[in-house]
């Protein structure tokens, strides 16, 4: 499988009045054609910042992509000029967000918003655009698409708005879709519809997906590969089956245990003690060490580098690297 996207050693920093924050630190990964890769983590893990960095959408200042390479179809996104970048954004790479109301312009009709993408990236004329918009809305399962096209975002329900955003993202048949918590704001029955939709469109157009989520259920159902992030760094990577059945990093293990609600009827859940460290007050050594049950003295001294514990299984943990449970 050839890589659609290849990220190497990406670092994103934010300058604040309280000091510099390393929101993303040394992140590397690749996504193959038609592959779905999930970036998983809790708040402050840097997953959303990483997603925004893919399209250079980090507000600068205060943010800055400090180092790294983001190769998309062989070109480095970080080296593109503004005009070149505009062509990639919404064209070859599309992005959908958690809150469709933030991404849709409230004073434009649905037709105008999706039409704008088609005009910019496909150079379509007015009539062709109007037809294509209705076709796209039908494709994403919006009932009465011709009527809906003339309405405004506030006329639509949350699920419908999310579909419109998917339609807009797909307008130019992107090679890569970046989906940042695409279903978090939706009800479960609507979430199932939207995930189903992304899946079927993926199969149809062979698009790759970078899925950013904190929901392990969504990951288990949609992703091929999983990257677990903690406090700005990748701590573990593997296929979905590997991560769920044979997690190696204590944080991944804890996360999976903490979400095993239904299997421990009556019993207490396994907790991860403490909380994610403040970015202004990162512990010395491994960022997870204050919460880790397997912690050793050296974990508090130096941060473990990523190293393969098995082929294709990089893990950033001294204990896991020594093969101890």
């Amino acid at each position, binding site marked *: 499988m050839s890589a659609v996207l290849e990220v190497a050693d990406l670092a994103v920093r934010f300058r604040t009045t309280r000091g510099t924050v390393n929101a993303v630190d040394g992140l590397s990964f690749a996504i193959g054609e038609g592959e779905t890769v999930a970036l998983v983590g*809790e*708040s402050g893990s840097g997953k959303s910042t990483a997603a925004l960095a893919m399209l250079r959408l980090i507000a600068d200042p205060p943010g800055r992509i400090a180092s790294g390479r983001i190769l998309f179809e062989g070109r480095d996104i970080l080296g593109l000029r503004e005009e070149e970048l505009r062509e990639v954004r919404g064209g070859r790479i599309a992005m959908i967000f958690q809150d469709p109301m933030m991404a849709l312009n409230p004073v434009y009709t649905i037709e105008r918003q999706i039409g704008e993408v088609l005009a910019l990236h496909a150079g379509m004329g007015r009539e062709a655009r109007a037809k294509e918009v209705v076709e796209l809305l039908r494709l994403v399962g919006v*009932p009465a698409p011709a009527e809906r096209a003339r309405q405004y975002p506030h006329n639509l*329900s*949350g*699920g*419908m708005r999310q579909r419109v955003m998917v339609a807009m993202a797909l307008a130019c048949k992107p090679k890569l879709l970046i989906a940042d918590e695409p279903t978090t704001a939706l*009800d*479960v*029955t*609507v*979430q*199932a*519809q939207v*995930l*189903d939709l992304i899946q079927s469109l993926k199969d149809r157009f062979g698009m790759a997906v970078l899925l950013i989520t*904190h*929901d*392990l*259920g*969504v*990951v*288990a*159902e949609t992703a091929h590969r999983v990257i677990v992030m903690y406090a700005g760094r990748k701590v573990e990577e593997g296929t*979905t*089956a590997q991560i*769920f*059945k044979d997690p190696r990093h204590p944080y991944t293990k*804890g*996360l*999976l245990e*903490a*979400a*095993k*609600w*239904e299997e*421990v*009827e009556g019993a*207490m*859940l*396994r*907790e*991860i*003690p403490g*909380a*994610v460290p403040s970015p202004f007050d990162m512990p010395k050594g491994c960022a997870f060490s204050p*919460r880790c049950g397997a912690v050793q003295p050296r974990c508090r001294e130096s941060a473990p580098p990523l190293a393969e514990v098995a082929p294709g299984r990089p893990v950033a943990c001294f204990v896991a690297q020594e093969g101890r449970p």
Partner: protein
Amino acid sequence: MSEGRGDVVLEAVDLVKHFPVKHGLFQPARHVHALDGVSFALKRGETLAIVGESGCGKSTLAKCLMRLDEPTGGRVVLLGDDITHLAKGALRGLRRHMQIVFQDPYASLNPRWSIGSIVADPIRLHEKVSRDERRRRVAELLETVGLDPGFADRHPHELSGGQRQRVAIARALAVNPSVIICDEPVSALDVSIQAQVINLLKRLQARLGIAYLFISHNLALVEHISDRIAVMYLGQVVELADTRSMRRELLHPYSKALFSAAPVADPDASARRTRIILTGDVPSPVDPPGGCRFRTRCPWKQDRCAAESPALRAVGDRLVRCHFAGDAGFPAPVS
């Protein structure tokens, strides 16, 4: 349910809440049917979960029970007293028996108050005790919810989300309530923190015998924490049963669809199970469909569903609002 009435701490009897909608001069008045005849009885030390999607009325239910919203019809009975029409003053006295923990710990704590004053506030309102006694109780409460008593001097902005939710729980516990309404208490928290708060709630219940009305959209969590589950759809309870029975089987088509749609954090299980993908959205509660409210999305709907609205009736060990639930061969497997 062999326990007598005496075990019931909170009862909703046929609760109705309609909100008026703005309408034109010559248009008929219209209403949002947020709650339409919701009844249940919550027993001492029990956890009853209310699940459903947005617009099903679960949060309105919480507000009507607390009398933060005035119900349009029906009754709320707390510890044997009908509190539906109680005047403000008398209500305040009874509120100490029923407390609420909200979803967003960032919005439910006054940012200008110290944690100590926040937790002491219900004590100050409901009991005449000295300042020293209050301070002692606050320290004890903070320890109960797993916070260092030193937190009393801090302010909400210095705390993480999980810590704030612990403060909200300490505040609810301050007056020894019989009932705590938990309205999505962990959905704003990270997964690793959710487990901490859920365990805390369970420990407190085992120790203090508090009953929880647990409102949530997280089905896996609800199965874990509750003794009984009520599924709501468009302002009505459509299925109510013991959690154990619900795990075994679901009888209402909506419950089936709802539970089958929830993603499971296990790749094998998710490959095995059949999902029922509903078409369309939840209809507007301003104009709920006549007959069965779920019929516009039900894969098994029949003519009778439009003609006649089903009553909440007993089928085996549970209550179900569906004409056909419990019939042999219903519902047929979906292709």
